[in-house]
């Protein structure tokens, strides 16, 4: 671990860690978040289309969003590397941090595979339904981003607080998922079962048709 100590004691990294300048630690911290929102934000838009939440949106024109996500990725990687270098020994022993990095790497692999399938020039993605494999890749990417965000926030905490916060977050997400499922079920039921007004109209239509038929 000598090389990590060397990295930590590097003159520039020491300045970043200890400086109170706006060009020091806080700049990297703030731009790490800005990079993240530019990476994950457009990903959400593409995921909304792939997973059927925005069915009318054309897929092909979304390709330029990949460039924005690339910019976000590079900002996140560069600022994240500097932030890591400010306390590398602590980070490599932090399980939550390792989970965060693993989730980011996997999310990027899945995202790359999903985008490759969506924007393949030999396939017209808008002319056919999104393949199940692409949907699965995109769902996995979203779950991994969620894990990365949660782990990223919990990196600053330790022990019982991490476990308790994780438990609270899982309960919160379960409640949100249950409410979303109930709302969806309710909407589906509303579509399937005609309302009293609709039933009344239907009966009137039948009666009208019967009269016409009688003639």
């Amino acid at each position: 671990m000598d090389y990590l100590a060397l990295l930590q004691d590097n003159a520039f990294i020491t300045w970043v860690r200890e400086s109170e300048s706006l060009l020091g630690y806080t700049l990297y911290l703030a731009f790490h978040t800005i990079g993240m929102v530019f990476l994950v934000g457009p990903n959400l838009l593409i995921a909304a289309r792939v997973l059927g939440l925005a069915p009318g949106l054309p897929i092909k024109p979304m390709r330029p969003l990949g460039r924005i996500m690339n910019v976000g990725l590079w900002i996140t990687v560069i600022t994240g590397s500097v932030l890591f270098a400010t306390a590398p020994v602590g980070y490599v022993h932090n399980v939550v941090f390792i989970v965060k990095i693993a989730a980011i790497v996997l999310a990027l692999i899945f995202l790359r595979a999903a985008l490759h399938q969506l924007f393949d020039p030999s396939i017209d993605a808008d002319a056919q339904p999104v393949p199940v494999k692409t949907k699965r890749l995109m769902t996995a990417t979203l779950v991994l981003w969620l894990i990365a965000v949660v782990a990223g926030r919990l990196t600053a905490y330790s022990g019982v607080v991490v476990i308790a916060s994780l438990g609270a977050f899982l309960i919160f997400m379960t409640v949100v998922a249950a409410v979303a499922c109930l709302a969806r079920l309710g909407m589906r039921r509303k579509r399937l079962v005609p309302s009293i007004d609709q039933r009344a109209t239907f009966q009137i239509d039948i009666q009208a048709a019967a009269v016409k038929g009688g003639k």
Partner: protein
Amino acid sequence: MESIIAYWMRWPSVEVFLTNNTWAWPLCEILHFIGLILLFGAVGSFDLRLLGIAKGLPLRLLDRLVPWGVCGFVLCVVTGTIFVTGIVANVGTHPYVVLKTNVWLQLKLIFILLAGLNLLAFHLTGMARVVRMLQPGDDAPPLARFIGGTSLALWIGVVYFGRLIPWAL
């Protein structure tokens, strides 16, 4: 007046809740970030399209995703309010003192207000109606592009100042 604001800003129930539940503050932080991503996913993408990126996307359809951005904003406002009103539990400083002395919090709130006024201008100038009629591939009018660029810059500012708030406590 000052004492009324100070009284209104400090919520002992929130402080007690945050003190007794160690998971509450980190959970709010996580939800604040998720809200931010939802906001950028919907509003940021709309702004980028106004600026001419991914011009093939119809703004009329992107507009339908704005409620997701609103959900994200609400999540940020609720968790942000918990942070401010219960801050005594975390740093032991009265929220009113934080509001008066923390320049980053002041700038963040000003930028949120400006983003709101910018959105109001988008609707009042009729640009919201104009861009909804644009076809895929069409350029947004210069005023709409200006409003989109301003919105993006303001939200980046909100994130930037937000990250600096803890360093001035």
